[in-house]
């Protein structure tokens, strides 16, 4: 029972956080973290639990964001309504995609999903009259303070993780994992593999679309290269889940935290440490190094991927026992 307390404690801390922290910068990072919890967990239910690896989650994220943005732009509907619809529209995009691509197995499916993401990005770029093309969509944010966004993001994260946890511990969850482990065996056990793969995809697309719509509301600006970005969303979603632990409930949450921290760490030059050193010593080498570190966050990601896959293939949560053993020198058998 002790283990079940961690999420509650974490929740309490997250709920009270805005009372203690007034820094907008920090709240912004937390909102990003919460968004990634949603996206990472969504990717995880489809890839980690059902075994259908997607390289195209940016499609669902972007469609969610565009749903909210376009509803406002064309029909003056509040983008908050768009948030409710964003998830549903993402799901509607996912269904025909699933119907077409689920007969494909393994790497072929992954490639098809990659094509989906890239295809929709091109469409959003070319259909200028409807989407504004590369000009993107701009809306006025509803709130000036970041606190409301923080709580909405927190709510979304809690709802998505809870719902996924519920699903995983019931019939569909067992069916998802059975499909991941052996599709033929699953079919022989009376599992309609196509139906359940589509169900998994729908849940995944729905939450990712919601996250996208929230992003539109929060950031106030989107364009095709931002929200349909292969690296910033499709690949990042994979990284979040892998670093945290594929096929575990809290893995993506841990992964989201690590990845957002990691990204910021590089982007700010170890939280300004290099800038400070550069100014303090007046050394031009350190200033150059500092610039290099600013630019290196993608390089850092790449190296992180390689290191994680080599040494922690099941992620921080999945390989927790291994980490305890090797890093903290805790040997459970003793």
């Amino acid at each position: 029972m002790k283990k079940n307390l961690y999420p509650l404690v974490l929740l309490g801390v997250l709920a009270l956080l805005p009372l203690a922290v007034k820094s907008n910068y920090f709240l912004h990072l937390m909102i990003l973290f919460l968004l990634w919890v949603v996206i990472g967990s969504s990717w995880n239910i489809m890839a980690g639990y059902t075994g259908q690896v997607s390289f195209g989650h940016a499609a669902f994220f972007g469609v969610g964001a565009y749903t909210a943005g376009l509803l406002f732009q064309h029909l003056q509907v509040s983008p908050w309504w768009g948030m409710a619809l964003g998830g549903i529209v993402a799901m509607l995009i996912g269904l025909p995609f699933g119907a077409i691509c689920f007969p494909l197995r393994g790497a072929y499916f992954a490639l098809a999903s990659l094509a989906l993401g890239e295809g929709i990005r091109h469409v959003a770029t070319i259909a200028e009259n409807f989407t504004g093309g590369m000009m993107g969509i701009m809306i006025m944010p509803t709130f000036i303070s970041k606190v409301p966004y923080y709580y909405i993001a927190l709510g979304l994260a809690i709802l998505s993780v809870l719902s996924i946890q519920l699903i995983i511990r019931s019939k569909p969850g067992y069916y998802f994992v059975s499909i991941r482990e052996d599709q033929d065996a699953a079919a022989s056990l009376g599992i309609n593999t196509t139906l359940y793969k589509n169900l998994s995809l729908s849940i995944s697309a729905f939450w990712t679309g919601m996250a996208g719509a929230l992003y539109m509301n929060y950031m106030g600006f989107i364009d095709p290269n931002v929200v349909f970005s292969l690296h910033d969303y499709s690949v990042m979603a994979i990284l979040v889940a892998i670093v945290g632990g594929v096929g575990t409930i809290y893995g993506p949450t841990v992964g989201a935290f690590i990845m957002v921290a990691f990204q910021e760490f590089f982007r700010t030059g170890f939280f300004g440490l290099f800038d400070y050193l550069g100014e303090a010593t007046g050394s031009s080498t350190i200033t150059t190094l500092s610039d290099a570190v600013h630019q290196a966050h993608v390089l850092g990601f790449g190296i992180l991927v390689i290191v994680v896959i080599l040494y922690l293939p099941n992620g921080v949560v999945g390989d927790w026992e291994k980490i305890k053993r090797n890093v903290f020198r805790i040997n459970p058998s003793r």
Partner: protein
Amino acid sequence: MDVFLQTLVAGILKGGLYALIGIGMTLIMGVMGIINLAHGQLMMLAMYVTFVLNTMGVDPYVSLFVAMPLLFLLGIVIQKFLLNPLIKVETILPENQVLMTVGIGMVLTEIARFAFSSDYKYITTGYANQTFYLGNISFSMALTIAFGVALTFTAAMFWFLLKTDLGRSIRATAQDKDAATLMGVNTGRITVVTFGLGSALVAAAGCLLAPVYYIFPDLGGPFTAKAFIITILGGLGSTVGAIFGGVTLGLAESMGATYFGMEYEDIVGLTIFILVLLFLPGGFKRLTKV
């Protein structure tokens, strides 16, 4: 009519290069059963090698002899130290190797950005802009040479795969890894050699492309995409298929650019990709059985 013929010629010449890119990819996909999502990035690296050598006065076609061995070695290192260790590791996702290539691709791109910045680089040669005419149809000198070299490499690759022991072992591994292991093929070593060869072939494509294209760190991604479209078109592990796939993509792209407009070039590739997945899963291999 001339426009059509001109487009046709341009497409086929481009297709020769694409075939070279595709053969490397299809070998890797066939032998290891994984998609190498760093394929275009390897080519990008070869282009920078060509660029650096060019600033020292080396002709791009001579740099083939430097870039290919270099990339061959890099391919071997990647397969031996980054991809093969993953086979033994038990993980939930079988796609770990594919994800690893994503990481490798990111690292290669960023290293190039560090070394050369994001600016577009050009290689200027005396012949890059030269053309000659057959009737009313113009042929780009550089692309024609590239096509010829690509054909030579493809033929050499064929001979290698069909006539040498190593080539036979590679084909055996591609068809059935377990059976090949049982027949005494050291499949671990074969995967290493194959990745090296695949990298060397795509490096050749990079050197040939360098004089007629611009060079920037992010060009890897789109070419990786082209590589797997070609492979899907041709069928996994099929060398003949890769040639068909390369030429088809080259033709489709230049037709698309001529008759629809430049911005549709990428869409054409994606459309073909989706159509093939839908209507011809298995690619041309299904039709030719090669």
